[in-house]
């Protein structure tokens, strides 16, 4: 899946109890656009600062930033 210089996004089924889980609607526009692009199979250039390692985002699936 999408990979930037330091972080990447992958689908996940396991959500750690201490994960920061956010719904897609909580993301800023840039982060929404980034995740939508990843979900549609694109590889956007840079991950927005609104997404951080350890985040799990609920979108069409559960996406983990790591």
């Amino acid at each position, binding site marked *: 899946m999408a990979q930037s210089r330091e972080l990447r996004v992958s689908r996940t089924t396991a*959500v750690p109890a201490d994960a920061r*889980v956010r*719904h897609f609607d909580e993301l800023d526009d840039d982060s929404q656009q980034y995740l939508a692009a990843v979900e*549609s199979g694109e590889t956007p250039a840079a991950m927005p600062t609104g997404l951080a390692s350890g985040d799990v985002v609920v979108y069409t699936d559960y996406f983990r930033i790591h």
Partner: protein
Amino acid sequence: MTQSYVIIGDGIAGSSAAETLREEAPDADITVITDEGEALYNRILIKEFAKGKLPEAPISIHDESWYDERDVDLRLNTHVTNIDTDGHVVRTHEDEDLEYDKLLVATGGTPTQLPVENSDAEGVHHFWTFQDARKIKADAETADAGIIVGAGLLGIDLAAICGAQDVEAHYLMRGDCWWRYALSEAGAEIMHDAMRERGVTPVFDSGVDRFEVGDDGQIRGAVDPNGDYYEGDFAGVAIGLDFNTELLQGTGVEQDGGVVVDEYMQTSVDDVYAAGDLTRFYDTVLGEHAQNGSWGSAKEQGAIAARNMIDAESEPFRWVSSYSITHFDFPFLSFGHPTIGDDHAERKYSDTEWRRLAFKDGKIVGGVLIGDLSPQSGYKRLMRDERVVADQKDVLMQKQFDADELAPAQEQ
């Protein structure tokens, strides 16, 4: 002199206001009152908990220590019984009087009850609070058949919960398609197909005439206005919200299907502000009063209200909201006010991709995107900029929408 701020409601609007007040008024006295028994949780994730996909822990946003660390006085399980706007005093159910310099009302709403026989039976659920989600999850885990009522954005959450919990369900809708005020049948059919794939059968031109219950008081099924019977071990009802405005009785605060506020979130009564679902706010993008129940809008309204409580009329609310549905393997997003307008454009691109834009006076005022969200930023920007573009629907509806292909903006 130290300012005193009282916030009624600890949803995202009230909590956002408390956080902003503490950041921008470090010495202020801040009290947050809520009738719920738990501090702020993520209301837009409780559906994931009810689906059985998320544990409880990540849904909590603030524990009580969050308020302690910020010197915010949080009062859980506390009901406001009176507001004296002349004396600037809030009275609680324990007859405690709390004085305020500025008051924020962010009490949200309560699900509207279905006005039919047995709507208060065991197993008939409304879906709003974390406690509601816990009860729905418990029932759904043991149910074989379910009934869903309310063909809108909250009702589809109940459909998804049934699908995720392997409950065969009938989704009883009054009209001829889901969310008929924003979608045409072409767009709605994509959603109907997704429901069917999950074992949820949409039933059109239906609804509930009455619920049938057993001797134990537990729901057994529903009869629709056509006389058809649908079996259900539980039912989920999501037909709207009644705003929690009882506490404003006698205050003189203007209401019109919600608490009327200006663009600074100030009500018609001095030093009383409101934020979140219950407001009828002046939308500076639309140029008229509007309502919105999205998480992002409520959070922003709370923050804006706080800034104006500190420094009156210092920052107007200007926001294009969005609301997405994340239950299916294709994305769905609505933005702005998709149910209003005097003109629209729509196009279907595939079995899972469809778009509709609503216009008013030639400007985009809202839209719905199914299957491909890539144009959303461009559309929202055009809405924020109040560009007249309704005469360029062909460009707007291109599959790969490019705002640069629009004719240059004219002087308005």
